[in-house]
C-alpha cells in the first residue's frame, strides 16, 4: 500500500463518502479535494446535488492521483469508504476494492417514511454485515462525538479527523486542518476543529496501531 501511494509511482487513491442528504457529504468531499491539491495531487470529484439532496441517499466520489480520470469511481476501485450512515455505507460497498478500508459512523438515520415495499431497517445487522466483510473496519458513533464537541452536524469533519489519524489518507492531518481553517465559516470553525481533534484522540485510544502499519505515505 505504501508504494501505491508514492507520487513518483503514478499514485492513485479513490475515496467514496456516503451518507444521507444534509449530513455534509459535499463539504467533506470538498475538504478532501482541497487537501489533495495542497499535497500536490490532481483531483476530480463527483457529487450528488439536486433532488436527491432532500433526505435521499447521497455520495461523493473523490479521485486523487497523478492524472485525471472521469470523476466516478468504478466498482471495486475505492481505496477508502467513509460512511456517514450505516445503511448508506453498505449500499456503497460494491465500490470498495478488495482489501479497501472503511470508516463508518454507527449513528443510523432511519428513512423518513417506510414505503410498504421497503425492507425493515436494522442498523445493528448492517453494521455486523460490514464487520464480517471488511476486516479492520473502524466503527464509531461520530455523530455522538460531534454532538459532544458542540454539534451533531460536525460528524463529517470528525470522520475526516479519524481517517487522517489512522493514516487512511494520502496526506497529513495538518493539511486537512489547514483546509478546515479556510473552508469552514468562522462561526462554525471552533466546533469543527474540536470535533476533528476529539476524533483523533478517540481513535488513538481505540486503535493501537496509530502511525503503524496502516499509515500511508503522507510525506508529500
Amino acid at each position, binding site marked *: 500500500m505504501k508504494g501505491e501511494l508514492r507520487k513518483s509511482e503514478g499514485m492513485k487513491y479513490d475515496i467514496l463518502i456516503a451518507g444521507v442528504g*444534509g449530513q455534509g457529504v459535499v463539504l467533506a*468531499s*470538498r475538504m478532501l*479535494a482541497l487537501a489533495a*491539491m495542497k499535497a500536490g495531487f*490532481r*483531483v*476530480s*470529484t*463527483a*457529487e*450528488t*446535488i*439536486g*433532488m*436527491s*439532496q*432532500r*433526505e*435521499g441517499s447521497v455520495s461523493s466520489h473523490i479521485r486523487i492521483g497523478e492524472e*485525471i*480520470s*472521469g*470523476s*466516478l469511481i*468504478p*466498482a*471495486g*476501485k475505492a481505496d477508502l469508504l467513509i460512511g456517514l450512515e450505516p*445503511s*448508506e455505507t*453498505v*449500499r456503497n*460497498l*460494491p*465500490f*470498495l*476494492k*478488495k*482489501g479497501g478500508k472503511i470508516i463508518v459512523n454507527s449513528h443510523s*438515520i*432511519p*428513512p*423518513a*417514511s*417506510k*414505503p410498504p*415495499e*421497503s*425492507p*425493515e*431497517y*436494522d442498523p*445493528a*445487522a*448492517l453494521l455486523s*454485515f460490514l464487520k464480517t*466483510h*471488511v476486516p479492520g473496519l473502524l466503527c464509531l458513533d461520530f455523530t455522538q462525538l460531534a454532538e459532544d464537541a458542540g454539534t*451533531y452536524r460536525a460528524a463529517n469533519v470528525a470522520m475526516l479527523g479519524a481517517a487522517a489519524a489512522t493514516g487512511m489518507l494520502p496526506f497529513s492531518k495538518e493539511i486537512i486542518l489547514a483546509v478546515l481553517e479556510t473552508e469552514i465559516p468562522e462561526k462554525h470553525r471552533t466546533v469543527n476543529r474540536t470535533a476533528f481533534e476529539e476524533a483523533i484522540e478517540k481513535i488513538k485510544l481505540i486503535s493501537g496501531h496509530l502511525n503503524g502499519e496502516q499509515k500511508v505515505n503522507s510525506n508529500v
Partner: protein
Amino acid sequence: MTEKKLLMGNEAIALGAIEAGVQVVTGYPGTPSTEALETVARYADRCGIYTEWSSNEKVALETAAGAAYSGAKSLVTMKQVGLNVASDPLMSLTYIGVKGSLVLLVADDPGPHSSQTEQDTRVFGHFANIPVLDPATPQEAYELTKLAFDLSHEFEVPVILRTTTRVSHSCGDVEVAAPEPAAVEASCEGFTKDRRWTIFPRLTAERHPWLENLQAQLSERFSGLPYNSISGSGKIGIISSGVSALYVKEAIKGFEELFTLFRIGTVHPFPEKAALSFLKGIEKLIVVEELDPYLEEQVLQLIGKAHLPVDVYGKKNGFFPVSGEYNVDIVIDCINRVLSDLGINSCISHASPAVLREELPPLPVRAPTLCAGCMHRTVFYAFKQAAKQLKKDTQVETIFSGDIGCYTLGNAYPLNMVDTCLCMGAGVSIAGGLFRTNPEVKQVAFIGDSTFFHSGIPAVINAVYNGADITLAVLDNRTTAMTGQQPHPGIGVTALGNHSKAIDIASVIRSCGLDFVKTVETGRLASCVEVAKEAMEFKGPSAVVFKGKCVGIAKSGTRFAIDSESCTGCGFCIKQLGCPAIFLPAGEDRPLIQDNCSGCGLCAQVCPSGAIRESGVKK
C-alpha cells in the same frame, strides 16, 4: 500568472466567461447548471458584469440576445429542459446571428438525476444549426467557454457550451489564468439600427443559405482544433466525446495497443476532416457516447458519404445502452461485447470489489423527500383532508396536478398528492384539460412561486378566459428552493442582491380575473384545510396563495418531542406525514423526533392524542 484552483465545472465556466470578457449574464436556475450564474454573480460587482436571474429561459435568452445585438459579450445559463423553453427565440436567433457574442451554457443530465428528460443538447445544436462544444472536465469547460466566446464573435452565431452532470457538478483542479478575475472591459458598441435585426420571411430566406454554409466552415475550423485529438495506434477505432471519453480511457487501460481513440470536444458541426483522417486504416469502429447516438449518426453518414469500409459498433446495433448515465464498468462491458463479436480473445476485466452488489443485504429505500418542516407538506396534507371532506359531503373526487420544484416530492408515499406532473408551468393547464374531460371531478393544481412566474401565468389566464373550473394552489415558500434558494420576481431581491419591486402573486392572479383569491399562512393546518375546502367548493376558477418560508432559508423554531406517556403508539404521525424528523426505532412501538426537526409543529397538530409538544430545545 496562472494558478491552480479547485473548481466545480460550473464555477470553471463562470471564470472562463469572465476571462473572456462577458458583460451580460442571464439565466434561470436548473440543476445541474445553476452554479455558473451564481459564481458570476459573486464577481459581478468587482468585475462590472450585469447578472440577472430572469423569469424564465426564453426571457433570459432574449435579454442576452438584445445585449449581444449591441455588441456585448453575453452568457445565458439553463438546464437542458430550459433550452426547450428558450427554443423559440433560439431557432430564430440562428438566422439573425449576433454582433458581440452569445454563449448558451446548457447542462444535460444523463441518468437523469434531477430532470424530467434525458434529452441530448448536441442533437438540439444539430437541429438548430448551432455550434456545440462538449467538455469532459472542469479544466476543459473553462477553456471551451473561452473558445465559445471567440467562435461566437468570429462567426456571429450563438454557441452552445453543452455539459453533463458529471462535468457541471464535478470538481477538479483547474489552471486558471489569474488568481482572481479582473474587471471586464465595460464598453460595447451599442445598438445600430439595421434591417438585419428584424426577422422577416425575406430576411430568413436570405440568411438560410448563410446559416447552412456556416456549418461547413465551422466543421472545417473544428477539424484543426486541439480539442479533437487522436491517441493510440490500435486497429480498432473508438470515437467518444464529453465525460464518456474519460470512461473509455480508464476502461481500456492496459489494452491501449488494441485501440485508437478519437476524442471530440467540438461535437457540432461534426469535424469531418479530422474524423476522416482518424478513420484511415480503421475498419472496426466503436462509438461511446451517453444519451442520443449523435456521434454515431454523424460518423455513419460520413462513412456512407466517403464510401469507407468501416463497421460501426454503437447504440444502433445494440452494443451500447441507448439511455442512462454511463460509467467505466458499463463501457468495459460494452467494449468486451464488441471484442467478442470481432472474435478477439482479449477481455477487459473489472476490478474486484470487497462485496458484490448481489451479495448486499436488503437495504431500506431512501427516496428523496420533502424536508422536515417543509411548508409544502402542510399544504398537501390540508388538501388531502379538504378533498376527503369534499368527497364525504358531495361524493366529488379530486385530481391533483403538480408541477416542477421541490413540491414534485409530494408524489411520494405517504402523501401521494401529485397525480400529474409534466414540465414547468404545466400543472395549471393540464388541470384545465382534465376538467374538460372529467367535469364531475374537482381539479386542483399546485404550483410553486418561482414556477408561477416562470410559466404559470399564461395558464391561469387561459383558465379564466376559457372558464376552466380549477383550484390553483400556489406554494409560496419565498424562494426557488430545489435549485438552492435563488431569488425570483416575488421576492424583491435580484441575483446581485439588489432591491427590486416584489411582485405580489395574489395581485397577479386577481388581475388575471379570478374571483376567488385568498392568501393563508401555512403555520396553522386548520386554516389551510378550511381555505382549501372553500376554494374547492367555489364555482369557477379559484386560487389560494399559501405563504410560508422554505426551511432552507427560515430560522428554525423550537424542536418538538413526543411524550412517551401520552403517546399511544398509533403511528398516525408517521403514516400520514412522512416527515423525515419522525421515525420509529427498530423494535420500538413509540416514534421519536430526531434533531433535524425544524419546529413546524404540523405533527403536533395531527397527533390524535396530543402527545407531541414543543421540547424547548432550540434547533
